[in-house]
């Protein structure tokens, strides 16, 4: 049977309907009993759990393929439905077909010419990749216009569709009370000014014989259609009644069977794959048990899958239907049962049809049937097929470790010995492989499994490890534990950009968290307040090579979003470099060596000078210069506002802060990465962060409440400005109430007042900030952080020391709460500052209860906003990715999708990479500088050649390629980089 051979490689997938015969053919068994298991717990033959449908209980054997649970995919069965039922998914199409085809000869109600035209349109749409439905809908609309079949001449009736699965034919027939209606109309209506009509006049007008008219009036003769129409016209009345005739699925099936193949092509239906009558089911396929496994509860009771429950219902009704029909039950009962069967089959396919009560579980929970299994985020498509669960993955809490390189990740031993790498044993690594196996599954660099050359997989246990180790030889495979230097993939959700998934080198460590260097927090957007991250061990050499070359952290230093570095010094690193370079302090030799101890520099550089005692000293900038590559020339403005000059790798002046080495486009990091390559940049970032940590430890850095407290005198000044502003607001309100306020263009007076008050009050905070700032020393830690760009800004300081300021909800002063006032503490319609959420206190002085309440209102809005935003932007991102995911730059420079449609002839109009060219540069290439260098003939021979050719980067070797080989003692001291 076809389903037994599972294809290894899928070339393409054909979609179509299946005909009943095909269902029967692929069925392993017909299902006739609604029962599942017998009293002994064995599946009943021809029941829903028939062993021919596959097995789920371990130990049993499938009666169709002979395989055991796990390897048997299961086999379909079938139910012979007692009467045809409609497939809910196709109700709209069925309606369309009923309306568009002849009720007698089933041909499409279009003339040959019309048909050809629509076929042509369809072809065109298909070629242009447009929606075919537009054409098919137009064709049906055209067909519906016909009231007679162009082929057999039969009169066509309207089709009514009662959702979800009932169809009626609506006929206009002569009403039974025609004689009364005619007589009534002939009486005339004096009020409306309609005259009486005599039978003679009627006869004359309708050209019907008088005797006939009399017969009609007496009700003994039923007028023919033409006569009816004539009378209707003459008397301006309606003699018809709607007669609805229910179409049973069997009728529809017969109708559809006669539709010729050529006709349905116009409707976009592929007759070869999908005949319309197959939309009405006569046989219902029964999914294999493997698709609806039953679970055994703790108490030994079996709990069946939702689908099984639904199938039980279907079989029960089906049985009853058949019994009743055989017993010759009245039509009414048969129809009821038919409807019930339709309901069960409908809900089996889709349990969320509007207008139909969903089938429920005993507990009242709606059943999850076929459609529900496919749909939505957790459905088959998005939940199981587009996103799969994987082996060799780990997840745990992360914590910082500044001693690691940014390329590394600290992996807990527990994780390292659970996840393995396959090692192919050759003559050259036999001893190494044996050592892993000898260590067993418990010892750290050990092994969990081995595979013999004959393909047999053996578990390494504490007991057999010694013995196995001796057997291991070339040709074996060893699944060894992760060791230092292995490459793994590391990820933090939400994975919003490619830097959310990067490759790291393993450093096995004690304890139970993943350890990261803090500089990789920005790309992952990670912090250590309990964040968890995922790790994936790679399982083949190709993947490992790709990860190492393309995904390693150092390869991701530059962000493609803005073309600058996304990895760089953060927070305390910035404060550290700021303290080290801002006032350019001096250090003695011991201090210098301490500062540089975690870098490659072993010897202090040339001293910057000697002090009074003749002792040599080194300045902060000199020390920082040690980290810079030779030949680096750079000039930029720092965050703190001074100009940083770097000449030939020597830091001459300026403060190194977030603009220099920070994470989002720090100039020095950015330039080093672009000019000296990723490896040099990695070394630089690692060293800057360690130097900065040493520096900040040297100076000491802490913040306390005293750092945000200002003298009483300043406090008084702030109070004064606040009082001032209150007066101004009072004046504004007075002017408003006196009607003297002039409105701004395009604003009402109320809006103008609000805007002016807001302006006045926001000025208060500014002034308070300025006053507070005057009283902060430059070495105040909060000021250092704000000025260097390490964390926080002057606003935070202002709010802590000066005044918290106006609280806002929806961009306005707080205006909600009670009728005409925010709180019952205020008079109605009080427009003053304090009644609308102005907080005049600072965080240090403490908020009054009312201020605190307003502050909480503002804060809450922020929280709600964030929650709404994440879901909205998540969906935006999903749509963008889905729409753009197939675009790829080609060798010829064009951007095409996977069906080779050209979207851009040159990416971004000039083909330059957004990673390598900063967003604000029109042109990364400095033609002028190149010209200078060429003209000055700086280079001769080799140098010149290198300069002229496109640079090629070194391959990506492991950071510790040499020091971490197992057979080396690895005890000698190596620097971090």
């Amino acid at each position: 049977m076809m389903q037994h051979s599972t294809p290894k490689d899928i070339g393409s997938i054909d979609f179509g309907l299946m005909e009943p015969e095909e269902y029967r053919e692929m069925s392993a068994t017909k299902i006739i009993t609604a029962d599942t298991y017998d009293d002994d717990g064995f599946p009943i033959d021809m029941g829903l759990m028939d062993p021919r449908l596959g097995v789920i209980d371990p130990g049993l054997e499938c009666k169709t393929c002979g395989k055991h649970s796990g390897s048997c995919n299961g086999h379909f069965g079938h139910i012979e439905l007692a009467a045809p039922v409609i497939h809910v998914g196709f109700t709209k199409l069925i309606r369309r077909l009923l309306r568009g085809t002849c009720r007698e000869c089933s041909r499409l109600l279009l003339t040959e010419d019309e048909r050809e035209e629509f076929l042509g349109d369809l072809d065109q749409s298909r070629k242009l990749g447009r929606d075919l439905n537009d054409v098919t809908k137009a064709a049906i609309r055209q067909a519906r216009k016909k009231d007679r079949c162009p082929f057999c001449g039969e009169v066509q009736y309207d089709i009514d569709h009662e959702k979800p699965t009932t169809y009626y034919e609506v006929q206009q027939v002569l009403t039974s009370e025609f004689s009364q209606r005619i007589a009534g109309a002939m009486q005339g209506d004096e009020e409306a000014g309609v005259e009486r009509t005599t039978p003679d006049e009627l006869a004359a007008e309708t050209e019907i014989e008088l005797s006939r008219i009399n017969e009609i009036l007496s009700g003994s003769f039923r007028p023919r259609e033409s006569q009816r129409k004539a009378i209707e016209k003459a008397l301006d009345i309606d003699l018809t009644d709607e007669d609805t005739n229910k179409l049973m699925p069997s009728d529809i099936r017969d109708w559809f069977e006669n539709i010729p193949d050529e006709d349905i092509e116009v409707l976009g239906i592929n007759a070869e794959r999908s005949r319309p009558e197959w939309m009405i089911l006569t046989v219902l396929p029964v999914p294999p048990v493997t698709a609806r496994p039953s679970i055994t509860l703790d108490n030994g009771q079996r709990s069946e899958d939702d689908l099984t429950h639904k199938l039980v219902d279907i079989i029960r009704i089906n049985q009853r239907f058949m019994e009743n029909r055989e017993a010759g039950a009245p039509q009414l009962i048969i129809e009821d049962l038919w409807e019930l069967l339709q309901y069960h089959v409908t809900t089996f396919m889709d349990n969320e049809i509007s207008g139909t009560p969903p089938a429920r579980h005993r507990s009242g929970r709606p059943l999850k049937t076929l459609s529900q299994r496919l749909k939505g985020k957790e459905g088959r498509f998005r939940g199981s097929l587009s996103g799969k669960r994987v082996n060799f993955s780990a997840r745990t809490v992360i914590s910082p470790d500044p001693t690691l390189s940014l390329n590394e990740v600290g992996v807990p031993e527990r994780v390292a010995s659970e996840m393995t790498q396959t090692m192919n044993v050759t003559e050259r690594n036999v001893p190494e492989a044996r050592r892993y196996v000898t260590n067993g599954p418990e010892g750290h660099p050990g092994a969990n499994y081995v595979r013999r050359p004959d393909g047999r997989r053996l578990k390494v246990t504490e007991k057999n490890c010694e013995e196995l180790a001796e057997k291991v030889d070339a040709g074996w495979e060893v699944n060894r534990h992760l060791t230092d230097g292995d490459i793994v993939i590391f990820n933090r959700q939400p994975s919003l950009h490619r830097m959310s998934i990067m490759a790291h080198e393993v450093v096995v460590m004690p304890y139970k968290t993943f350890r990261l260097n803090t500089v990789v927090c920005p790309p992952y957007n990670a912090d250590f307040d309990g964040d968890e991250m995922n790790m994936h061990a790679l399982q083949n050499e190709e993947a490992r090579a790709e990860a190492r070359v393309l995904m390693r952290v150092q390869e991701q230093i530059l962000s493609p979003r803005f073309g600058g570095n996304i990895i760089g010094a953060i927070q305390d690193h910035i404060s550290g470099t700021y303290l080290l370079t801002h006032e350019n302090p001096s250090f003695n030799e011991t201090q210098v060596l301490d500062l540089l101890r975690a870098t490659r520099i072993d010897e202090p550089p040339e001293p910057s000078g000697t002090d009074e005692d003749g002792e040599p000293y080194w300045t902060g900038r000199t020390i920082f210069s040690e980290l810079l590559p030779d030949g680096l020339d750079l000039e930029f403005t720092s965050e703190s506002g001074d100009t940083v000059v770097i000449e030939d790798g020597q830091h001459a002046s300026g403060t190194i802060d977030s603009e220099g080495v920070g994470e989002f486009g720090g100039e020095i990091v950015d330039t080093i990465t672009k000019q000296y390559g990723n490896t040099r940049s990695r070394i630089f970032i690692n060293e800057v962060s360690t130097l900065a940590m040493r520096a900040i430890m040297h100076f000491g850095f802490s913040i306390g409440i005293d750092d945000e407290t200002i003298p009483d005198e300043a406090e008084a000044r702030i109070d004064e400005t606040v009082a001032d502003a209150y007066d101004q607001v009072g004046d504004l309100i007075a002017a408003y109430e006196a009607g003297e306020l002039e409105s701004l263009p395009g604003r009402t007076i109320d809006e103008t007042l609000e805007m002016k008050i807001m302006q006045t009050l926001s000025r208060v905070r500014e002034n308070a900030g300025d006053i507070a700032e005057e009283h902060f020393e430059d070495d105040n830690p909060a000021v250092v952080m704000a000025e260097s760009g390490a964390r926080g800004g002057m606003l935070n300081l202002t709010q802590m020391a000066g005044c918290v300021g106006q609280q806002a909800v929806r961009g306005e002063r707080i205006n909600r709460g009670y009728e005409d006032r925010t709180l019952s503490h205020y008079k109605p319609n009080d427009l003053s500052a304090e009644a609308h959420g102005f907080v005049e206190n600072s965080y240090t002085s403490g908020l009054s209860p009312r201020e605190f309440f307003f502050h909480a209102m503002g804060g809450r809005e922020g929280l709600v906003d964030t929650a709404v935003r994440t879901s909205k932007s998540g969906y935006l991102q999903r749509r963008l990715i889905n729409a753009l995911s197939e675009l790829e730059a080609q060798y010829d420079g064009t951007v095409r999708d996977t069906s080779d449609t050209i979207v851009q002839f040159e990416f971004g109009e000039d083909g330059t990479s957004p990673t390598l060219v900063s967003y604000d540069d029109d042109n990364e290439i400095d033609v002028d500088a190149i010209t200078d260098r060429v003209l000055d003939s700086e280079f001769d021979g080799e140098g010149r050649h290198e300069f002229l050719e496109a640079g090629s980067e070194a391959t990506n070797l492991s950071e510790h390629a040499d020091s971490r080989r197992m057979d080396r003692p690895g005890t000698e001291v190596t620097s971090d980089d």
Partner: protein
Amino acid sequence: MTESRSAVGAGGAPGNGYDVSDDVVAVVEDTDLPRRLKDEVYGTVESREDVTVEEADEIARAVEARYLDTRVDPLDPVGTVSAQSIGEPGTQLTMNTFHYAGVAEIDVTQGLPRLIELVDARKTPDTPMMTVYLEDEYATEREKAHEVVWKIEATKILALGDVSTNVADMRVQISLNRDTLEERMITPEEVAEIIEDSLGVETVQNGAAVEFGPEEPSYRDLLQLVEELREITFKGIEEVSRVVIRREEVDDGEEFVLYTEGSAFGDVLSIEGVDASRSTCNNIHEIHRNLGIEAARETIIEETNDTLKEQGLENVNVRHLMLVADIMTNRGEIESIGRHGISGSKDSVLARAAFEVTVNHLLNAAIHGEVDDLNGVTENVIVGKPIKLGTGDVDLRMGSTGR
């Protein structure tokens, strides 16, 4: 798209406008540089004195080497990268629908809602607006500029005078303000005529007073008429409810620029004094209708870029926005990003089913007898095959001896 590597001196001699020798042109044109870089090389060579051909060649080659270094790698999945680059900062955008753009007087949708609106290609934006530039004297003289304003801004009756209802006589009485009428260049006669045309009533016009009433005395009709009267646009464009005039600095002095609330781009372009070459509108569909698909593409780029800039995310590379705009306009009409646009018109059934409305796509595929050839990304993830993107798209293999 700018011409890049192909067109050598399309239209006239290459190195147009630069005083360089033909030999220099020859060596520079020989490189794979894009036009702008070639021009820059010419400019640099021109500004230096006595650059030899050899040196020019070296300069050109050095620049070329740098340029090739900064090109996108072949097989780079630029689409995904662009999508991520726009989507990732989405979390940092504000949700505040209303905020003030460059003009404080006009509220414009900003932040995430605006970005979503653009990507959705909504038929009308939440807050349509236009920026209307003026030409010649209209741009420099306030009076002239105001003339254009009155032609654009919809003038309602309340702006022209006072309306009162005389219940006793069942009349609506309008007393027009002479000054306003003069300023807005409309006569009482015209006002009366417009009222007659649009309400179908007889009016009595006497100087600045216009009076009319319902045909048959009915209190309801009277009020109805007043309601309808308020809706009439006497002058200007109905869609434009407000125009703000601003004086802006330009290179050579100052000019008046109009900002409108509401948009009717096609109508505005034909008004005298409007500089059609600079005026824009924030409705991409209006731009598409009036200026074509390339202009629409440009507007999508501009609008997304402005939206991000307004939120302090100016550091998103335009190239990403270009790609989004390009895919939205690729078929010659504006397609939205999502179920009703690009994602819904994919070739692959599985890709569509995996995005949204799963079941319907599968059922329709069955009816139409569709075949999924598994070329795209999502489909191959589903069936578990390598994706034809990036390293998965490389056919070249190393070291297969074939044995």
